[in-house]
Each structure stands twice: as C-alpha cells, then as structure tokens.
C-alpha cells in the first residue's frame, strides 16, 4: 500500500496561503479568494475520502495484526483538522473586517469594497447591518446612532480641509455650506465625523 506522500507534501501550503493573504492586508479586505478556497475544500474532500477508504482497509487488516495504515490515517486526519482551522480563521477574520466596515461606512458599502466580498459575505453583511440598525433603533426612546461619537470630543468645532469637490452640504441646523476642494472649514465636529470617514474631509490638526 503506497502512502500518498506526493499529495501530502503540499497539503498545508494552500490553506496557509489563505491566511498569509489576509495577514498581508491587515486593515483592508482583499478580494475573496474563491479559487483557493475551493482548492482547499477539494483537498479536504480528497483527504477525507482517502481516509475513509484506508480506514475500511485498516479494519480488515486489523484482524491479521497489520496496523501499518494507522500512521497515514492519523497524518491525514491532522491535515484535515489543520486545513479546517485555516478555513475557519480565514472566513472568521474576513467577517470581523466586514463588520468593522459596517461601522465605518454605514449600511451601504462602497462599490469597490463590495466587489471583494463573496455572495455569502454580502448576505451576512446585510443581515448584520439590519440587526445592528434594529438594535440602535431600540435603545432609549428615539434610538441612538452608535457609529458616531467614536472618539472623546475635545471641542465642539473642528477645522477640516475639504479633499474633493463635494458641492452643497446641508447641515443639521439648516445652514448650507459649499464644499470645494482644498477649502478649509471650521464646522461642528458631529457634522464632520461621517464626512471625514467618507474621505470628503481631512481633519486639520494645528
């Protein structure tokens, strides 16, 4: 019975590659690597099937006192477990990242980020987004927006520089400001917070 070393040697490479890919892009979300994921899936499938087969053979050999297949089975089993962990880690950490984006961008993701999500992740995102919104509505009497006030305030107004030609922007009190590229404004912090996150403003720290 030949041990299939040839395919055992590369067993962990692909799964590890997934993890490395995420690790390289800390803070951003790389495109969902469905090719590699399905390769790892196939690898797991393959390992499980060969293991089932060998387990059956082993059962037969056992009666004649032959346990030579056992080490192979154990090896494959830990390879399966390892691949599994890598897959779980890959997907879980992506979810964490998507979750952070819900807090940064609100319920609607920018299209360029949306492209990087898998279908399942998009579904998860919309569910998460809904339950978060539902929670925020149910706090207090009128609901509360938890995605603002992320940092302790130091002053009511802050100085910001406008980075894009945004056009007219109406503030909560009805005042309309005209936001032109490279202009500086002194505005209430609350109004700016979201625009800063969207990349319209840059906080000028003097």
């Amino acid at each position: 019975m030949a041990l299939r070393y040839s395919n055992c040697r590369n067993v962990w490479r692909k799964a590890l590659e997934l993890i490395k890919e995420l690790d390289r892009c800390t803070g951003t979300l790389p495109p969902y690597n469905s090719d590699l994921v399905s390769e790892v899936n196939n690898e797991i499938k393959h390992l499980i099937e060969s293991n089932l087969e060998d387990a059956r053979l082993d059962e037969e050999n056992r009666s004649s006192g032959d346990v030579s297949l056992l080490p192979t089975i154990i090896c494959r089993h830990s390879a399966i477990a390892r691949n599994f962990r890598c897959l779980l880690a890959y997907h879980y950490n992506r979810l964490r990242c998507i979750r952070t984006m819900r807090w940064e961008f609100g319920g609607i993701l920018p299209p360029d980020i949306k492209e990087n999500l898998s279908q399942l992740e998009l579904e998860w995102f919309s569910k998460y987004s809904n339950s978060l919104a539902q929670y925020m509505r149910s706090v207090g009497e009128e609901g509360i927006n938890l995605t603002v006030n992320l940092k302790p305030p130091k002053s009511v107004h802050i100085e910001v520089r406008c980075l894009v030609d945004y056009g007219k922007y109406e503030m909560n009190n009805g005042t309309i400001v005209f936001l032109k590229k490279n202009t500086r404004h002194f505005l209430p912090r609350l109004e700016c917070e979201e625009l800063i996150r969207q990349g319209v403003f840059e906080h000028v720290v003097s």
Partner: protein
Amino acid sequence: MNNMDIDHDLNNLLEIEEDEEDEILLSPATLVKIIEEAWLNEKFSPEILPNKQEYVDLLLGQLAAMDDNLENASDRDIKKGVHQLEVDRLKFLVCSYLRTRLEKIETYIEHILKQENERIEKGEEMYLTDAEFNFANNFKEGVDKHFDNLMGIHPTMPISWKNQIVQPNINSFVFAKSKADIESILIDEGNDDETVYVNKDSQIIISYNSVSNLVKNGDVQLI
C-alpha cells in the same frame, strides 16, 4: 428658551419616580457618575457585566431634552458652546459604553448566549438587555448560517469545530480600586487561606476572577 433653562437642565436635571411609594432621587451628577463607572468597568472587565439599562435610558432622555434646549439657544451665546461640548461628552460616554458591550457580545457570542440561557432557565436576572439579547440572537444566527454554508464541504465532515468557542479570559489581571473596606478577597480558589484585606480607596492589581462579584455589586471599581 433662554440660558436659564439650560443651566437649570444641567444643574438640576432629574427626579425619577420609580413607583409611587418608592421614590428615588437621583441628581444628574450621580447619574453621570454611575454611567462613568459602568463604562470603566465594562471597558476593563474581560466578560460582559450586568446591564445598566435604566440609567442609560434616563441619561439618554436627559440628553435629548438638553439637545432640544440647545437648539433653541442663541448661537451667539458663549455658554452654548460649553454646554454643547458637555452634551457631546456625555453622548460619547453612552455610545462608547454601548459599543463596548456590543463588541463583547460579538466576540464571545456563543459563550454569552449560553450563559444567558442558563440564567433564563434558573430564573436569574439577565445581563443583556432585551435589545442586546435580540441582537445577539440575530448575530449568532447570521454567523451560524454563514459557516454552515461554508463548511458543508463533505457529508462526513467532523463538526467538532462548533464546540470550540471563544471564551473571555476571566483570569486576566485588572487594576481595581476598592470603594469599601473589604474583609477578604479570595485569591486562590483552592486554598481558603489565601485571602487579602483591602482598605477603602486602595488600589490593587488582581486576577479578575477574584473580584468579579465585587465588581458586579459595585464594591470594586476597575480602573
């Protein structure tokens, strides 16, 4: 609305009537202090703590009233800015407190829900508010569905990964300040002799596990 009203708001905010007979007077300063302490505790404790929903709701109600008053105040008044900043600070406090709790719920979702369900069974008071509990259940549903879809690779797939749940490390060390004289804190659970006496206002570094009950009943403040 004039400034007198805002001053009045800040200085003499509230008077809660819980029941007709059971009237509790709570000054705004006390209310803010309660939330501040809850916030610090929540920030530093590894596990989720009992909710303070009534206080949060009270403070939110007050903040809404103050917002209304501020909107009506004149923009030229120098006091308005000061009040606005104060209101913003309080808003940050509440938001951060609630956010911290949500983050814990998300991270330790399985663990927390398991504990909550045990509490329901025993008829104990729940740590999560109704809204948080809803959120937690929805969150778990979403994550479970996501991973079930992903991990159904092979029919004979082991499902043992579902049992590996993320748990808070309740033995991690915390800085704590005692708010009362505490006779004895058990440091080593296996050994009854290992206790410490803690004076009021003294500060200690201790394993969270040893003081978790004291944190929950308010004798110890995490810092």
